[in-house]
């Protein structure tokens, strides 16, 4: 008897657990915006409608259902972001989207395996511009040229559409969303701005002088860099293009030597704890630093928490222009996509203005298309969005792409730039010697992977060559 009671108890418990698992409590965010606006309309003409309706349109009461669409993505991988994708961003899609977050290696293996097998379950792919070339080379991606008009109509810049072609006449991805790196400045720093400098359009020298002025006035080093974070992107995509016009080809030119001298000089005013900084938002909020460069997603909390205390600024320019690194995320479809219609519909859905705004609000990636930031987008995010647009639209902008074509060895290039930095700036080694030695490693990497040059370096036939 007792046993039976126990059994029943366990069964009910299990059932309860199952029920609890099966019905997750979704967070419903309801925002009601009531717009009351009186529009004065003057009717001056009565138009008679005489056009004959030639076509009868059937309006079906049940909306279209695109069925199951499997969507693998190397972005929005952290659990929190993946949940936002599933629960908020993809919620209104007329179909059932299975969102599969994956790291780069898993993503590439999965898609390649499906294409090799000739059939698969994945219909849509979301990945960085630099993560597609292996798939393009293997013929794993469809030509999406028929979706280009839609993307252009919505205001996707031509430069970004061009990126999706990889130098061919086919469209391998439709730009989905972007991120980049900008400057953040505490408003307290404005008192020390060098004379005649426009914070929205600084040069790197002025930026250094700004930090120098603060140091001389307060005795504190208030400039911060995420040395324990994404510092390599600052070297590859910002300072190198700004000073040398290139990233790989100009690695050890005389301009590069000047640039390293400048970095060493600037480093006198950089906060020594920069070596531990991973995300600059924390030292900005604690006011350990007043000026910082970092990825938009790693600055966002500073702008969200105290939008009135911080300025979001475009990156400074150097002698060759304003080097900056747009992180472009694209949407593609594998040749083995089982749900062609659903996949295309999902791409159309994700590039809609309202979905792009939701994406910005939920996961912090900026729209690829022209949008007006509506009032309900937090002020901090709007600040960042404006700085991102200004940076990209600057007349002297030099967009520098993430390394392309290095395949699984794309991490090693970062090691080379970081080592050059550590040896020159931290260990105080001779600039020319270090550049010569690291350039050899860079050239070996290019030769072994056969990677042709990518922007900002001019296109090359065969492996990219260091000058």
């Amino acid at each position, binding site marked *: 008897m007792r046993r039976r009671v126990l059994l029943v108890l366990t069964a009910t418990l299990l059932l309860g657990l199952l029920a609890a698992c099966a019905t997750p409590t979704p967070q419903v965010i309801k925002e009601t915006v009531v717009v009351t606006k009186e529009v004065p309309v003057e009717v001056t003409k009565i138009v008679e409608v005489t056009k004959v309706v030639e076509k009868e349109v059937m309006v079906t009461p049940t909306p279209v259902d695109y069925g199951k669409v499997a969507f693998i993505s190397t972005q929005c991988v952290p659990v929190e972001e993946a949940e936002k994708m599933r629960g908020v961003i993809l919620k209104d899609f007329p179909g059932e989207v299975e969102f599969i977050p994956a790291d780069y290696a898993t993503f590439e293996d999965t898609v390649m395996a499906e294409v090799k097998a000739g059939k698969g379950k994945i219909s849509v792919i979301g990945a960085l511009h630099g993560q597609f070339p292996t798939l393009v080379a293997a013929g794993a991606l469809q030509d999406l040229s028929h979706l280009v008009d839609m993307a252009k109509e919505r205001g996707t810049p031509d430069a970004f559409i061009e990126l999706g072609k990889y130098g061919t006449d086919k469209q391998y991805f439709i730009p989905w969303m972007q991120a980049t790196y900008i400057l953040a400045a505490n408003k307290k720093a404005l008192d020390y701005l060098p004379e005649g400098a426009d914070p929205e359009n600084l040069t790197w020298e002025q930026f250094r002088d700004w930090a120098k002025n603060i140091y001389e006035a307060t*005795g*504190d080093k208030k400039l911060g860099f995420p*040395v*324990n974070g994404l510092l390599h992107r600052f070297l590859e995509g910002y300072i190198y293009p700004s000073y040398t016009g290139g990233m790989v080809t100009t690695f050890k030119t005389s301009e590069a030597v000047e640039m390293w001298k400048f970095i060493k000089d600037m480093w006198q005013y950089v*906060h*020594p*704890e920069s*070596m*531990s*900084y*991973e995300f600059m938002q924390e030292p900005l909020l*604690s006011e*350990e630093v007043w000026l910082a460069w970092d990825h938009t997603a790693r600055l966002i909390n500073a702008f969200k928490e105290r939008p009135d205390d911080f300025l979001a600024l475009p990156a400074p320019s150097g002698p060759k222009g304003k080097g900056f690194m747009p992180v472009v995320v694209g949407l593609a479809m594998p040749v083995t996509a089982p749900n062609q219609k659903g996949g295309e519909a999902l791409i159309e859905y994700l590039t809609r203005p309202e979905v792009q705004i939701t994406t910005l609000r939920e996961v912090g990636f900026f729209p690829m298309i022209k949008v007006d930031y509506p009032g309900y987008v937090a002020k901090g995010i709007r600040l960042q969005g404006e700085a991102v647009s200004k940076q990209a639209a600057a007349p002297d902008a030099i967009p520098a792409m993430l390394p392309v074509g290095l395949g*699984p*060895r*794309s*991490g*090693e290039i*970062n*090691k080379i730039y970081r*080592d050059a930095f*550590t*040896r020159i700036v*931290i260990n105080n080694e001779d600039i020319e010697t270090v550049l010569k030695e690291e350039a050899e490693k860079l050239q070996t990497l290019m030769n072994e992977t056969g990677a042709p040059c990518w922007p900002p370096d001019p296109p090359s036939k065969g492996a990219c060559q260091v000058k």
Partner: protein
Amino acid sequence: MKSMAIGLKQVRLRRLNLEPYILLLPSMVYLALFFAWPMFQAFRLAFQTDDGHLTLSYLQRMFGDAAFIKALRTTIVLVVSIVPIQFILALTMAILVSERLRGADLFVYIYSIPLAVSDLAAGIIWFSIFTERGYLNSLLYNLGLIQKPFLFLDYRTPWPIVGIVLAEVWRATSIVFVILVAGLQSIPRDYIEAAEIFGANWFQRVWKVILPLLRPSIQTALILRTILAVQVFAVVVAVAGRGVTVLAAEAYRWYSEYRSPHMAAAYAMFILVISLASAFIYLRTLRVREEMRL
């Protein structure tokens, strides 16, 4: 009928002989599957290219790596400073506790608390103590000892290393302590009492009786701590970020950031070799002679 009984007996006998091995089997399988096999794989990664050629190029690249010498130097500095401090502290604590003072049991629990703290958590705790706006600076400032925060974690000073040593000592002394307490408890009181009767003072008792009898535990504790100190990673990264680097941190970065499992494996192999060498040295120098075993 008779032959069958003999047969059964033989089977039983054979079964008896197999028993220890059967009992050992699960742990053997476990070790083989989760230690020996991955270790073999790591060896292969370190010495074999993707297309199967044997190569020393990864090792050469590791020795030529800009970060290698720095990482090796820091690792050695950390081992040499952490292990002796921990050992002396733990021994003192263990002997104090075994003196059966009032409330000694309570001390055992208090001393063991950091055992439950993960190394990353310990690192973060000590980071929040030493950082510019950390607890230590706030305290010094409120006491009026400093006018503005002192940068303990400035990579150009030895302070980050001091911070790492403090964090490691705080976190992992207890493991040495627990091993030594266990060793002390297995020493019969008779020996110590006999020494007392013969007129040995406290120092003589510790030096001539307790320490020699504690040798096996000391050996275990030292081997364990040295190996763990060679592998030190999370505390270093949490306290000093990129300001201080160690071998394990470089192995991690090669794997996760620079995406070269081969180079990561080469570093891991190097750490393994150092660990084995240190264990070997301890085993030789602290050899426990048969007659000294309890």
